[in-house]
């Protein structure tokens, strides 16, 4: 018995009056939607992923795309998605994988928080005229400073300072590995962070040698598979990040399929060509918080205590207590990845159902660390669904020191969030290793776009701070007084430690 086909996801049509048959759509679509027969462009809408590559390249705006062109009987519970997932699993008996971040319609807390501005009683600050201090240091801060006075009366700092990362803006680019994204995508991001005085993560995939010129702006990752990790790699990084979990798939490991392990990826990850790269769910040398401390110190010892060590966890129910444990492990920063964090591929049931929103996680972690008097022991980096400078400002006001952006930086390179990263055919040259597609990214142009994005958000953040009468990022950090909750329930306001609008 056949279950038949499910309806088209998208329907593509061409306005034949507008079309001049330049064939750019045919050339650009890597999914094979278009083909030419008898001088006519034929369309196979079933192959379309809504990546918009053809639409963006069409010089006549002749292409239109319609989502869900076929209706199901509407039902609030049995959504089209629910029905189609069941049909898929009835056919295959397998776990469903999906790309990009959480696609469930949960309320977005960021959009229920509003920022403050000065009126009359205190003046706002004009960032055009006044200096705005956005410089951010990530790493341990001493609980107190001790000084010595020499015979001549010179004052010298006696306290030994822990290594910190110096950021010109509190926006970093999160870890997306070579393998998950292309080398040209990584190179564009690397050039952009070098230009804007900030940092990016390598992801768990080693560091390709063409990124060495940007290594001072790169945070190297050590994940459970230890791919590409050797002492040279650790020494290259400006900081080292231990990846425990990821917001898109908390509690499970990673898995780069063999077909994506080409010769260059194989060299960078230091694994055989075409073999599956399996990152186990836990680090098998970390079975406890004490073991985590051992890995943190092992990395410090191996790099002679010169580098800050970050620990990245997914935002889960007990995130605050876990972060407090991490703060005591000698780690210099804790990265919290919310449940909207992106990914190339994750089991859909995890992507959509496991973990908590980043907004609540930041507030809970900041509060717990403050309550325990150890907030200075670790910086807090937030990630997972930061879409704009407003999300950035709200994250910092909730208690983050800086944010990682991932999806936003890829959108600056062309990504349209179609969520088909796992197919390796990304027409924008981002989530693919196919040379003709990868070459679609000009790394100079790409890096400029990413740098523009970081620059724009930095400008907007300064304006938002100035309007709120704040001239230093330090004064915004954890400053819940600058936030009000709009249509958030009392229990949520309590977790966020934010007053409602009007209060």
């Amino acid at each position, binding site marked *: 018995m056949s279950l038949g086909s499910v309806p088209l996801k998208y329907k593509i049509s061409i306005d034949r009056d507008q079309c001049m048959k330049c064939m750019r759509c045919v050339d650009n679509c890597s999914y094979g939607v278009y083909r030419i027969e008898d001088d006519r462009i034929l369309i196979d809408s079933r192959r379309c992923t809504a990546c918009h590559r053809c639409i963006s390249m069409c010089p006549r705006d002749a292409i239109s795309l319609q989502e869900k062109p076929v209706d199901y009987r509407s039902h609030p519970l049995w959504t089209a998605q629910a029905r189609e*997932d069941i049909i*898929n*699993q009835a*056919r*295959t008996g*397998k*776990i*469903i*994988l*999906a*790309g990009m971040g959480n696609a469930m319609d949960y309320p977005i807390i960021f959009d229920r928080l509003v920022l403050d501005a000065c009126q009359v009683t205190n003046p706002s600050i004009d960032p055009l005229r006044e200096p705005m201090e956005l410089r951010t240091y990530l790493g341990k801060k001493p609980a107190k400073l001790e000084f010595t006075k020499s015979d001549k009366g010179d004052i010298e700092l006696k306290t030994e300072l822990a290594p910190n990362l110096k950021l010109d803006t509190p926006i970093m680019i999160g870890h997306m590995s070579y393998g998950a994204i292309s080398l040209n995508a990584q190179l564009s991001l690397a050039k952009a962070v070098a230009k804007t005085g900030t940092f990016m993560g390598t992801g768990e995939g080693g560091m390709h040698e063409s990124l060495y010129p940007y290594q001072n702006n790169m945070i190297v990752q050590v994940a*459970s*598979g*230890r791919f590409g*990790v*050797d*002492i040279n790699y*650790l*020494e290259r990084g400006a900081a080292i990040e231990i990846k425990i979990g990821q917001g898109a798939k908390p509690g499970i490991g990673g*898995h780069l*399929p*063999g077909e994506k392990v080409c010769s260059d990826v*194989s060299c960078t990850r*230091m*694994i*055989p060509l*075409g*073999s*599956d790269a*399996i990152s*186990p769910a836990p680090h*098998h*040398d970390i079975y406890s918080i004490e073991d985590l401390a*051992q*890995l943190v*110190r*092992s990395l410090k*010892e*191996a*790099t*002679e*205590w010169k580098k800050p060590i970050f620990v990245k966890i997914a935002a889960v129910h007990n995130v605050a207590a876990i972060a407090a444990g991490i703060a005591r492990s000698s780690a210099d920063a804790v990265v919290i990845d919310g449940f909207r964090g992106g990914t190339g591929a994750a*089991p*859909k049931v995890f992507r959509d159902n496991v973990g908590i929103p980043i907004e609540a996680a930041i507030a809970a972690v900041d509060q717990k660390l403050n309550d325990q008097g150890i907030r200075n022991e670790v910086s807090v980096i937030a990630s997972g669904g930061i879409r704009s400078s407003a999300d950035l400002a709200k994250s910092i006001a909730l208690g983050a020191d800086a944010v990682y952006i991932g999806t936003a930086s890829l959108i600056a390179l062309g990504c349209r969030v179609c*969520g088909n990263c*796992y*197919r390796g055919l990304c027409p924008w040259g981002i989530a693919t290793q196919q040379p003709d597609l990868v070459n679609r990214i000009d790394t100079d142009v790409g890096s400029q776009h990413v740098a523009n994005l970081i620059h724009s958000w930095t400008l907007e953040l300064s304006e938002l701070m100035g309007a709120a009468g704040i001239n230093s990022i330090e004064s915004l950090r954890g400053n819940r007084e600058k936030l009000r909750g709009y249509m958030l329930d009392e229990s949520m306001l309590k977790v966020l430690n934010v007053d409602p609008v009007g209060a």
Partner: protein
Amino acid sequence: MTIDANGMHYTPLNKMIRQAVASGVREIVINNVLGQRFIANGLRSNVRITINGVPGGDLGMFMSGPECIVRGDSEHAPGNTMDNGTIVIHGSAGDAVAHSMRGGRVFVRGDIGYRGGIHMKEYDQKRPVLAVGGTTHAFLGEYMAGGIIIVLGMGHEVAVKDRGIGSGIHGGEIILRGDIQDRLLGVGARKVTFTDGDLKRLSPLITEFCERIEVDPAPFLDTNYTRIIPASSRPFAGKYTWE
């Protein structure tokens, strides 16, 4: 050069080792080692370090080149994510020995704990070896992606009697002395006959291991071994469907 590690914290100890190596010392003896972790971490050199006592966890982690000889037992994870070099332990060792090791050799005369050789991998010319004279606990060679594990089972009836051997293995091989019960194999592990060809191929390694742990190799140079290899190089290929 001789270092007395009595009461010394691991950081100054490692600093002394680094300084000695940088100044050209190629032979270091550390006495009275008692639980100091991270000895020779990330060290790049051809130095030989003799450790008299019991080193703490992560001995030789990320190490690339040195030879560490332990006259005593060793704590968890010696040879963790090691890149190159040799560790010889003349006693027993804890859990996760040779965890994620990519190159070099870890030789243990006695027994090891759980998860020995877990996620060992090979690459290019690098093929890591974990050899154990005694026995091991569960999950030996789990997720193994390359390299060789040899267990001789000296002083034990069978080389390994714990379960989960090679679960998720997708590269490399596990060689165990004698026969191993099928029920001890993990998911994705396959038992094959140890052939004369295997013996010929591995004899130099078995001999070298025995010599390093000061045992006569002769009784071990026959085909009385079980060879465990991956059932597939893509253990999870059939688990997923796309949205």
